[in-house]
């Protein structure tokens, strides 16, 4: 499967990955020119944290081999697709119990900020060749590789 790799030392905290993710998931259009940063309903599935040394750390979903979010999901909304390797999220099945938010050891997940009903979960841009966060990263802190699980 394809995985987004992270070279944190190359990250300049430009938030390009965040904007790329928001652009991809913008219902009003996927171009950067469609992006309205004041639209609170459009949120990124990734984020950048500052560690205790003030270094930027990009946090992007791993689509883990043993995903805690899927193991903990009691509605069947979060599942590991054994064929593609992706951890997929079906918002229509989700009961908004937030066990996945509690269980992801890497702090990737959050509820949407407006209605708190949907999980902000990476979908690898529907498995397109280059996910938008990678496409938008100017320093190649994010890049994709094929990995064996």
């Amino acid at each position, binding site marked *: 499967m394809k*995985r987004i790799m992270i070279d944190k030392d190359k990250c300049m905290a430009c938030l390009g990955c965040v904007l790329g993710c928001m652009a991809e998931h913008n219902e009003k259009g996927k171009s950067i020119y469609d992006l309205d940063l004041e639209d609170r309903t459009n949120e990124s599935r990734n984020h950048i944290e500052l560690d205790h040394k003030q270094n930027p750390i990009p946090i992007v979903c791993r689509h*883990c*081999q043993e995903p805690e979010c899927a193991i903990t999901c009691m509605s069947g909304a979060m599942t590991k697709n054994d064929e593609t390797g992706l951890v997929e999220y079906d918002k229509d099945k989700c009961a908004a119990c937030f066990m996945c*938010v*509690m269980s992801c050891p*890497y*702090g990737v997940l959050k509820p949407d900020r407006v209605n708190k009903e949907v999980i902000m979960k990476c979908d690898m841009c529907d498995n397109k060749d280059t996910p938008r966060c990678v496409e938008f990263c100017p320093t190649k802190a994010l890049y994709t590789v094929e990995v064996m699980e």
Partner: protein
Amino acid sequence: MKYLVLGASAAGINGAKTLRKLDKNSSITLISVDDKVYSRCMLHLYIGKKRNLETLSFIDKDFFNRNNIEWIKNKRVSKVESKEKKVILEDGTFHEYDKLLIATGSSAAIPPVENLREGKNVFTLRNLEDAMAIDKLVNISKTAVVIGGGLIGIDIAVELINRGLKVHIVEMVSNILPMQLDERSAKTYERELMKRGATILTDKLAQKGVLDSENNVVEVILTDGTRIGTDMVVVAAGVRANADFIEGTNIEFDRGIIVDNRCQTAEEDIYAAGDVCANKPGIWPLAVNEGITAAYNMVGIDKKIESSFGFKNSMNFYGIPTISIGNPNPKDHSYQISIYDDGQIYKKIVHKDGIVYGAIFQNDISYIGPFTKIIGDGIAMDSIDKNIFKIGYGDFFHVKPNGEFEYKII
């Protein structure tokens, strides 16, 4: 190889699914009392008419076909003959196994309060049949008493209120959700419930039900003499393991089946997973994890449960999410308590000497998963010079060669 799985909920289904993933050829049979697969954690949503029989399911419609699992439903096990390696059902038929997984879960118990067990309108909520019976009675009821203000009790109370009932919640300690919350965070939900007409009776115990001539409880009397007239009673006050059928085997039992960290019982080739097991909180993720772990060991691949930390819960009532981890109510004054409270968002972290013992995150739970790991594994944080509320996975960031994350302990 013939695998036999007992139970069709979190542990049984995930056990069977994993068996098939690891062993494409052997026969897998799953026997259950349930004739539908559904998520017990969502049964209250059936009462609230937010989910139906179809949307209560946590598996795909073709799960059994696709995984080539034979499902024998509507059957109860009466005995395990471990010497002959077979399971006898109540209808007298039997099924042989090479490896057996017991994942029969637990049943809700009605406490020994006078007349509650006799009352025809007294329910627990554990099975779909319970939810259906409650749903029916709600149609002709105006008031309900919910005994037990824990997670299941409040889940039920919220949905009964949604259906238009006047609800009385009886909780024996001083706030609702006492296992998960503190007074401050419980108040948030108590206020929301009371706004919607609920009565919350804390520090009170039910002492007696008053029966009418048709054996319906029409009044609940509390130990302080309070009398509450009611049309129905729902009890959410504890469970017991479904394991009567192990009598006569060498399986060890102490309020649940005792297993090792490979989910194996004291009896060879018999494994157990989920709420039927002893010594841990009965929560969904542990049951799934145990089902998966048992399956690995059943096919001969060594796999241990890495963490059976189960003191973690999330809740979401009236659009206010809360996550509670560990023990957020310290037992003595030796703990340090860090609090953030702006009236809407409330966060509390209980720690001592760099170790976090408990936490509550209310109304802002974004990215808090690492605290489950930190508390569950007892990861020391004293070397992290940072506002404790800002600690995240970034502080432990490390990428394995295959791109997966792991914790770099500093």
